[in-house]
């Protein structure tokens, strides 16, 4: 690397456009900022050497200078923009409609959008923000941000520190605001300096050369702003680790106590009860709206929940003492908070069966005939026994239990393990006999559907005593003497809770604050500099600002009031 010694004696690094000390344009480097074709000097970064633009040696330097280019940075942003735009052409994976042919993206996109959908899926555009190449693109923008900032901040900081009040005359004459005054007295000069100080300029004088400067602080605005952006990017990075961010969902039925997923099995939740309030259909205020909507509208749904903490050294799954850490009502917008986690009320399911009571009856001769009862038994649907002995000698053995019954070509089956539509095959042993009768009983949801009840939104609880009459009750042989009738049933509700933990929010907030601070710093202050150079009898006056030229002109007007100093001319206008 060659250094360039300016005639003022300052040694500048290779690639310097304007001498760091006196501002004299350095011969042979003027093309870098395009000064060779213009009358005015380009004052970007004060004409410092952005070294990376001037030499590349090792591979590290080459990578560095690649990312140091603003052009590269802008292109990366443009690419990210284009990718984001393309990502909106077809729906993202999480917005694949429920009634789509398949929720599997590998099937959904090609089937729905043909070859374009196939490409869309293959490129990962269906899950854009998580696709590796998009992530890398964003990360490269971050790299570019860091390196661009460093590569500009350091030389600019140095140049503004090194700058001398004594400048080369061409530096002044090629500033945008410039004037030469032939006759200026010492007294008038002193007056100008005093006026500058009055305008809160910092004034430095070297051999009668004056540099008045204010608002240098504003030059750091963009870099502060970039620091803010980098903090935000770091926060986004941390958000992908479970330690800082958790987002899970848990279904917990009334009375149940289960692990809260995503908490390392440290916390358990118990549902003490779920409350569903609805708007009153008979209330004048809501009548029309409810009718328009055509269904019952909940006004409140809440879970009365208790959270327990397990001791730290417990082996997963082992039953140890649980310590109660929180008990509250979780409602819409009122999450339960504990140890950085938040539980939000997010959904509910009605009409899960909790228990059913059956009655053994004599088989009626005809529909609706009075029948004799041979006793009752109740089954806990979460934990049924294998057999139930009745006081009068009857024994009922459960042959099969379908918690979530459905019928397909393979016969009766269960959809899930949850008691959403419990159905039984019973073997009924009358007293003192080994012979049994088989009964198939249940499918209350099917029965309710067939009489026109929407079981997804209507609570079946109040109908518990009557619904049993509509239930399926099959006698396989047609020779049964007894039937098992559903006498009563009880329901519980299942509460859906979102488990959230986001410790990155304060970091995002902090980054945004720094970002905003930088914006304000750069926007509402301007870096203004005014140079005064003595000539034989008069002075040269030049000024530069990074924005708001009108403001600096006003400053100068005030400063030279009642003196012989000529007002600066805007050479940019002359230039054109």
């Amino acid at each position, binding site marked *: *690397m060659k*250094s360039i*010694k300016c005639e003022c004696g300052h*040694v500048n690094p290779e690639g310097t456009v304007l001498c760091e000390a006196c501002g004299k344009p350095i011969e042979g480097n003027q093309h870098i900022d395009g000064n060779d074709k213009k009358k005015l000097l380009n004052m970007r970064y004060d004409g410092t050497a952005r070294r990376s633009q001037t030499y590349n040696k*090792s591979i*590290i*330097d080459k*990578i*560095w200078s690649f990312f140091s280019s603003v052009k590269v940075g802008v292109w990366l942003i443009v690419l990210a923009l284009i990718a984001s735009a393309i990502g909106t052409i077809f729906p993202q994976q999480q917005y694949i409609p429920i009634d789509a042919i398949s929720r599997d993206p590998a099937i959904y996109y090609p089937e729905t959008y043909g070859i374009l959908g196939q490409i869309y899926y293959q490129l990962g555009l269906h899950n854009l923000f*998580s696709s*590796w190449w998009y*992530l*890398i693109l964003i*990360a*490269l923008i*971050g*790299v570019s941000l*860091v*390196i661009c900032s*460093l590569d500009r901040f350091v030389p600019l900081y140095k140049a503004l520190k090194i700058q001398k009040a004594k400048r080369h005359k061409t530096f002044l004459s090629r500033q945008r605001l410039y004037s030469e005054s032939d006759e200026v007295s010492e007294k008038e000069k002193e007056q100008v300096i005093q006026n500058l100080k009055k305008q809160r300029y910092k004034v430095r004088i070297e051999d009668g050369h004056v540099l008045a400067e204010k608002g240098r602080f504003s030059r750091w605005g963009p870099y502060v702003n970039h620091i803010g952006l980098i903090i935000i990017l*770091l926060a986004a*990075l941390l958000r*992908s*680790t*479970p330690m800082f961010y958790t987002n899970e969902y*848990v279904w917990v039925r009334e009375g149940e*106590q*289960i*692990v809260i*997923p*995503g908490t390392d*099995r440290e916390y*358990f939740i118990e549902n003490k009860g779920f409350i569903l309030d609805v708007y009153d259909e008979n209330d004048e205020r809501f009548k029309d709206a409810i009718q328009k909507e055509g269904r019952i509208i909940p006004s409140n749904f809440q879970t009365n929940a208790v959270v327990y903490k397990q001791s730290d050294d417990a*082996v*997963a*799954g*082992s039953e140890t003492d649980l310590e109660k850490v929180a008990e509250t009502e979780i409602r819409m917008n009122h999450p339960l908070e504990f140890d950085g986690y938040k539980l939000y009320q997010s959904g509910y399911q009605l009409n899960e069966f909790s228990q059913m009571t059956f009655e053994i009856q004599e088989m009626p001769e005809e529909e609706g005939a009075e029948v004799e009862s041979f006793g009752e038994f109740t089954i806990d*649907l*979460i*934990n*049924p*026994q*294998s057999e139930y002995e009745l006081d009068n000698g009857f024994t009922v053995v*459960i042959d*099969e*239990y379908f*918690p*979530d019954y459905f019928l397909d070509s393979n016969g009766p*089956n*269960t*959809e*899930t*393990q949850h008691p959403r539509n419990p159905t039984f095959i019973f073997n009924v042993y009358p007293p003192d006999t080994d012979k049994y009768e088989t009964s198939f009983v249940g499918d209350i949801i099917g029965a309710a559907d067939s009489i026109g009840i929407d079981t997804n939104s209507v609570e079946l609880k109040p109908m518990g005593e009557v619904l049993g009459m509509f239930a399926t009750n099959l006698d396989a042989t047609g020779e049964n003497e007894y039937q098992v009738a559903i006498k009563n049933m009880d329901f519980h509700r299942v509460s859906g809770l979102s488990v959230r933990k986001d410790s990155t929010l304060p970091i995002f907030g902090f980054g945004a604050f720094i970002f905003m601070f930088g914006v304000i710093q750069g926007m509402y202050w301007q870096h203004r500099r005014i140079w005064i150079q003595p000539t034989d009898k008069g002075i040269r006056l030049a000024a530069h600002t990074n924005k708001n030229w009108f403001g600096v002109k006003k400053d100068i007007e005030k400063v030279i009031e009642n003196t012989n100093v000529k007002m600066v001319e805007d050479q940019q206008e002359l230039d054109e």
Partner: protein
Amino acid sequence: MSIENKRPNKAKKKRNRLIFRTAILAVLFVAIIYAVVTNLNKDNTIYKIGDQAPDFQLEQINHNNEVESIQLSELQGKGVMLNFWGTWCDPCEAEMPYMQQLYPEYKEKGVEIIAVVLNDTRFNVKQFVNKYDLTFPIPFDNKGAIQDLYKIGPIPSSFFISPEGEIVEKVEGALTLERLEGYLKQIEPEDNQD
């Protein structure tokens, strides 16, 4: 200062700059790798092939097996097939007979089959056990603890764990008899292999 005097100074400066740039690029590079890797692993699997299988303890509910509770760490030295299933799940039902078929043979060879049943009714598990004459231990995870521990999504899911306690293979979906036997062979303790 003349240019000549500056030479050694400059060489030092240059070296410092190279170190500085290398350091910053390295930090940025590590951050990118970290971001991409964590993001790719986000598909809800915390424990991967090569990891130590996390320990747990659960009540055992297969009435054909006399063990009262199962703690994974007590099975060190044995290969363990850790299966997750439910009575209502048809593909689970499809692979269960294969597991039972191979169990007595591989138990002799030092491989244990543990079939954790997720949030089910004891009654249906009992019926299921009777239907297929299952004899391997069936721990009962009715609080979702082990499901969360192993981040089990769709079932059946099976982990094959080496005698040293390391996860050797993870299989989502039902296994055929041949594949099951292949995996069980992989986790046989060394001293049993000839």
